[in-house]
């Protein structure tokens, strides 16, 4: 696959149902347990719990200029567990996993796949024009 927005999120963009001002986080996903599907997965409960290696805190310093979503780089502290092949960005504000919208899938990134060694992992967002993603 390639980096992409989840189809469900693209639909939500047309109905303003997902607010990126909410708490947005990322989760590292182990494809040995579950491979996200951007065409059919829509909420966090579609990603098996066993596949979630580590979850970040809420993105900080978010900007939305000209349809480009950006935020401060994210650091996951003391990451342990299975190797992971992708990152999934989702809205962590809704109360249940069945309502936390999946937003973006990233499997093309320098450093992926990654085998956690117990140390911190920093995700540096693309510093080009697209940043995290561009609508």
């Amino acid at each position, binding site marked *: 696959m390639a*980096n*992409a*927005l989840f189809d469900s999120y*693209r639909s939500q963009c047309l109905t303003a149902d997902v607010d990126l001002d909410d708490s947005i986080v990322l989760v590292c996903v182990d494809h040995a347990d579950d491979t996200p599907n951007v*065409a059919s997965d829509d909420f966090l409960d579609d990603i098996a719990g066993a596949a979630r290696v580590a979850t970040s805190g809420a993105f900080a310093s978010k900007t939305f200029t000209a349809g480009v979503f950006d935020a401060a780089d994210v650091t996951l502290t*003391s*990451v342990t567990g299975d190797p992971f092949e992708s*990152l999934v960005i989702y809205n962590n504000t809704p109360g249940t996993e069945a309502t936390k919208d999946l937003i*973006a*899938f*990233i499997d*093309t*990134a*320098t*450093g*992926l796949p*990654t085998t*956690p*060694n*117990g*140390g*911190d*992992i*920093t*995700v*540096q*967002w*693309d510093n*080009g024009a*697209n*940043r*995290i*993603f*561009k*609508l």
Partner: protein
Amino acid sequence: MELLAQQQAVRVRHEGTRVLVIKDGRALLDLPWQAALDLSKALHAQGKRAEEIDRAKAIIADQAIITRLGLRFGITSHPLLLREAGKDAAWDSKLRRYIPAAKAMGIASQTIVGAPQLIQYPPVPAAQEGIR
């Protein structure tokens, strides 16, 4: 037949500059010609919308083909019909058989997701954990 009889009972005619809609010998509407033209346009528009609902099944089927082929036009703007057509375009077994994924262009997305960089740091030795 009863419905047809009712429709036949309604007659439209003009008297001078005014347009009359007469039912059973009584004038239902007595309009100036400009209003009559405006009303006819509104009736036409609402009639087409009602026709859209009546033919929903066929419209959804046709729109699903158009959507699956990725053609940049549509035959309806009704949101519910478009939503159903979108589902059929993605999941209908016949469409998937006869317009396989390789030929199904869909409507290309212009969104771009950036490519980040992951930097992994070595674990902090236990002795230093207290001073992190």
